[in-house]
């Protein structure tokens, strides 16, 4: 399912979380938490509230002052991939539908996570309900995850709120959450809930999938547009409303981008007619830079 050229380009890339994550799996990711250390890091003068068990009595003997030991632990990352498989994600005016592109991107990220011994989980929204594959770091789990993705059809509506609620309930500690969706939720509540995950210290990235036909509205003759998630239909003369449609759609894209930026959520707009490897590379390098700043 994954494009071989994309995978070969990504083999040297290292996925780094934007912040230090809690976890137990040692690896490339540094934890922000001190205490359960296997490797001494530094001393800190005691202050009320510090655990007494971390007092370095030898140092007290030498300097007659209380010092607390601090340790540096290596932790593992828990990545949750949230894929929208609603009917609208099946829209395809080009080689790949939005869902197919979402599957490719999610599969590639899962492969990278597992390859560096991080846990990868999958949450899908399809047909109005939410299904979950818990996060694991086992190699066999990757196969199951990819299989689940491969079988995923585009149908019904996406219940983003339920998916985020489930994720918030299951994700212990800080996690990396990548959402793949076209975000065509008229109420906008789903996106708000995704952005709230960031408030709970999760590292959130939104991959906004857009078809070129949605961006350009290239229809000329009178057309009967059919809804992909219901029975709605609309007969219009595309030439008459093109200008108005493009205004509306671009405003939607811009408001989504701005909301993500304000919530400190990574936002990647993905055109389904673009090569995917530059998208992933751009995303990963951006995350690497952001981590460096922290």
């Amino acid at each position: 399912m994954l494009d071989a050229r994309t995978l070969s380009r990504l083999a040297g890339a290292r996925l780094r979380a934007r912040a230090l994550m809690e976890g137990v799996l040692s690896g490339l990711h540094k934890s922000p938490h001190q205490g359960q250390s296997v490797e001494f890091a530094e001393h800190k003068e005691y202050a009320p509230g510090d655990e007494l068990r971390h007092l370095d009595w030898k140092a007290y003997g030498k300097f007659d002052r209380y010092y607390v030991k601090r340790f540096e632990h290596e932790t593992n990352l828990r990545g949750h991939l949230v894929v929208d498989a609603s009917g609208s994600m099946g829209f395809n005016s080009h080689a790949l539908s939005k869902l197919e592109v979402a599957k490719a991107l999610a599969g590639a990220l899962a492969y990278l996570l597992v390859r560096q011994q991080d846990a990868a989980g999958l949450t899908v929204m399809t047909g109005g309900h939410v299904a979950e594959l818990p996060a694991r770091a086992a190699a066999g789990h990757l196969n199951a995850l990819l299989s689940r993705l491969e079988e995923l059809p585009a149908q019904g509506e996406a219940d983003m709120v339920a998916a985020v609620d489930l994720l918030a309930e299951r994700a212990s500690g800080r996690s990396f959450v990548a959402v793949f969706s076209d975000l065509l939720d008229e109420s906008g509540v789903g996106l708000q809930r995704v952005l709230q995950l960031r408030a709970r210290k999760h590292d959130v990235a939104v991959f906004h999938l857009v078809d070129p036909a949605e961006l350009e509205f290239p229809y000329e003759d009178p057309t009967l547009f059919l809804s992909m998630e219901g029975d709605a239909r609309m007969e219009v003369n595309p030439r008459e409303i093109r200008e108005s449609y493009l205004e509306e759609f671009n405003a939607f894209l811009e408001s989504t981008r701005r909301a993500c930026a304000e919530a400190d959520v990574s936002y990647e707009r993905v055109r389904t007619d673009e090569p995917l490897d530059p998208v992933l590379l751009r995303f990963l390098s951006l995350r690497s830079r952001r981590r460096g700043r922290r």
Partner: protein
Amino acid sequence: MTFAHPWMLLGALAALIPLLVHLFDRRRPRPVPFASLSFVLRSQKRSASRLKLRRLLVYLLRTTVLLALPLALARPEWKSESVAGALAQGPAATALVLDASLSLRFSDGKPLFEKARARARDALARLSPEEPATVVVCTREAGAPPPAGFDRARLRNLLDEAKPTYASVELNRCLEQALRALDDSPLPARRLVVVSDFTQGSLRLEASAPTWKDAAGVVQRPEFQLEDVARDVALSNRALVDLKVLPAVQVGPRAFQFTFTVRNFSDAAAKDVQATLKVGSQVVAKGFVDVPAHGTAQKTLTHRFEEGGSVVGEVALSPDGLAEDDVRPFTLEVPRELRALVVNGQPNPTRYRDEAFFVDAALTAQGSPARPALRDVDAAFREDLSAYDEIFLLNVPAPPEDVAAKLREFVEAGGGLFVSAGDQVDPDAWNVRMGPLLPRPLRVVRTAAGRDDPDADARAERFAQVDDRHPLLSPFTGEAREGLMSSRFFKYALLEAAGAGEAQVLAHFRDGAPALVAARRGKGRVLLFTSTVDRDWSDFSIRTSFLPLMHRTAAWLAGSLDEREALHGRVGETLALPAEASAKAASAESPSGETVPGQRLDSGALALGPFVEPGHHAVLDSGGKPLPGMVVPVTLEAGESDLSRLGEDALSAWFGEASVKAAAASAGPSPVPLWSWLLVVAAVAFFLEGLLLRK
């Protein structure tokens, strides 16, 4: 609203096409599943009112295009209700009478005739298709018009080809002809559309208006529709109505004075009207003349020609609205310098007693047309007479037989001979040898009074009757006549009552005896003076009239004084050429190159004409070549220059009050052609429709 091509209105049904397309367009839109349908819905809602308005506009614009095009092709015109009402008289067989007289050449920027043509075309276009029509272009020579028919294109061609003439026309005759041309129409009404400027000369009001008889034999008046093209035009005009060309002896030989009369037909005085005298194409004199309102003024321009010969020229005023009558053409035979042989019959060492002293002095004075050669009798009779144009025999004894024969030959060939009496003149000998040449045979010498008699002044003879109609004596009128009439004659020769040929007594003495007798012999002329030209028998030679009379005598004898002036034609008339010119002439060529036909009269003379335009007409021989010196100046009729218009009362009395009122109504705003505006509307609608669709 009227339509030139009403059948084109059927095309207006095309305006239904947008509606029909809207109602019956059953094309099904292509179904397309689309992800962002919510945005399509929102856009559609947002644009709904705008789209509805735009669709309505597009529909209206398309309908406008499809409606305006056939309407424009139908060539609509808008007329005010009053005009339309005036014209709504029901179908009638119609004849359009277009006045083509000289006065229609008046122009106030646009020639009156062009306005008349346009009005006639409009009137033709207004006729309904079921009305038969004909056109009469009213000229002096207009023949019967074509019978009324429905071929509008042919009538339009007739109007397009019509030209204004240079003559007056008689509308009465044209109206009669027009009405007769409608005789075959089955329609119960007749209409005459009269397009004219209605000047005084256009209509004879004393004649009755034309009538026709309907099927029941009842006499009917036709409906008159008057198209007055000069209602709003100030027809002010002045014209050159007369031109006299006379030798200006006082200025010099070959000098002429051109006296012309300018008449002002308008209500305002004309100041400083420039007049120019042109010879050939060169302006040789200029002057200015003031003419009072409805008055005349005379002006004289003088010009001295350098050499003799035939001259064509014109006197012209600065042009006004009717420029054609501001020019007066003329032709002139300028005499060449004449050679005169003066034969002195009684020479005298004392100059003032010499017989030829006064004649020689007169002919050598300024202004003399002749250059004299003074000879005594013996020397003169040995001269080659063909070297002279004229011979003055002053108190000469009867010439010998051979000389008399030479003199006869000289006169027959065109020479001029002046004979004066005296003591040397023996009547019998003269009658024998010179009888055939003398206007009348000499009889005896009569003595009226002795020069030294105390009552000589009372008894001396004087001129009593002078024929001032003759060119020789025409200047001697008024004060000039006094010098002639005061001359005293103490002796003179009496003449026989009749001679060898025709003779004309130009002056008599108080006792009835002839004093001056003229005659033509062959091609030449002879003038006999029955007294002396010195002071022996009279004191005429010291009178003021002597010198001009000698000058005119010299000119008249050579045939260069007056005959050519008679050659003058008028537009619309024919001119009979003089006998000598008629022999070779066959036709003439007008200034515009048209041929003026010549007709041989029973007398053998050639009648040229009728002339149709003014200006110089070259007389042509049978081969079509111009005859040298034969040019006929043709002038206009003076009456056509009077552009004063017929009053409404007069027109109402003749045409009927209703027709005149309708004419006044139609003289308002002219019909407004709407088709060009409709084309503009269609083009704008087409452009806007494209603009809306592009958005």
